C-alpha cells in the first residue's frame, strides 16, 4: 500500500451495488484536480473487475488496491 499518497476525497460505497459506486466515483474524479487521488471503499465483489475496466476505459489510474475483510479499497488518481 502506498502510504505517501494524499487522499483528496473518500467514497464510502460499502453495501452499494453496480452502477452506484462507479457513478459516484466518476462524479468524484470530475470534482478533483489532475494528480489528486480518490479513495473508494466497496463491498461488492463486482467492483474488483469493474475498477480495472474503469481504469482501461477512462485512463484514470488505480495506484493502490487492497482488501481488509469484506472491504475492498482502491486509490484512483485522476490522470487528465
Amino acid at each position, binding site marked *: 500500500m502506498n502510504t505517501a499518497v494524499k487522499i483528496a476525497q473518500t467514497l464510502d460505497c460499502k*453495501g452499494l451495488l453496480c*452502477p*452506484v459506486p*462507479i*457513478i459516484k466515483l*466518476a462524479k468524484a474524479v470530475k470534482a478533483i484536480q489532475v494528480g489528486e487521488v480518490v479513495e473508494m471503499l466497496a463491498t461488492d465483489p463486482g467492483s474488483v473487475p469493474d475498477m480495472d475496466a474503469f481504469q482501461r*476505459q*477512462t485512463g484514470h489510474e488505480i495506484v493502490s488496491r487492497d482488501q481488509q475483510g469484506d472491504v475492498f479499497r482502491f486509490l484512483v488518481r485522476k490522470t487528465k
Partner: protein
Amino acid sequence: MGDRPKRLAMVASKGTLDMAYPPLILATTAASMGWETGIFFTFYGLDLLHKERIKHLQVSPIGNPAMPPPLPAIPALKVPNLLGVLPGMTAMATMMMQGWMAKAKMPTVQEMLDLCVDADVKLFACATTMGVMGIKQADLIPAAQCAGATTFLDFAGDASVSLFI
C-alpha cells in the same frame, strides 16, 4: 482510447419494473466512463420517459417462473404460476421487487432516470409510439427528445456498442 469517445446506443422496449433497470444501469455506467450514450425508448419502454407512468411500473408473476416465493425461507410456498392471474398478485410481485431494490440500496427507476438526465444521456422518445399511443411531448420529461428511427440509427451508426433491451 481514440480521439472520439466510445458510444453506447440502446433501444429500451420494455415498460416493466424489472426490465426498466438494465438500460438505465448500462447508460449511467457508460456515461460515467465518458461514453456518449443514447437510449431510444419505444413501445412500452416509452413509459420510462412518461411523467406519470414511470411512477406505476409493475412486474407480473404471470408467465414468469423465475419469480421466487414471497418468503425465501419457505420455498414450498412458491406461488403456482397459474395463480398469478388472481387480483393483487401483480401488485404483490411489484412490492416484493421494490422491497429487494430498497434493501440493496438500489436507486429507484425514477432516480436512475434522473441520473441519466444529469449525465446528459440522450433520451429519444419514439415518435411512432407517441403517435400510436396518443402521448404528447408535455406528457414526457423535458429531457425527452421526440425522434424517429432515422435519428436513432444516425446516432447508433457510430456506436461502439448497440443493444436492444
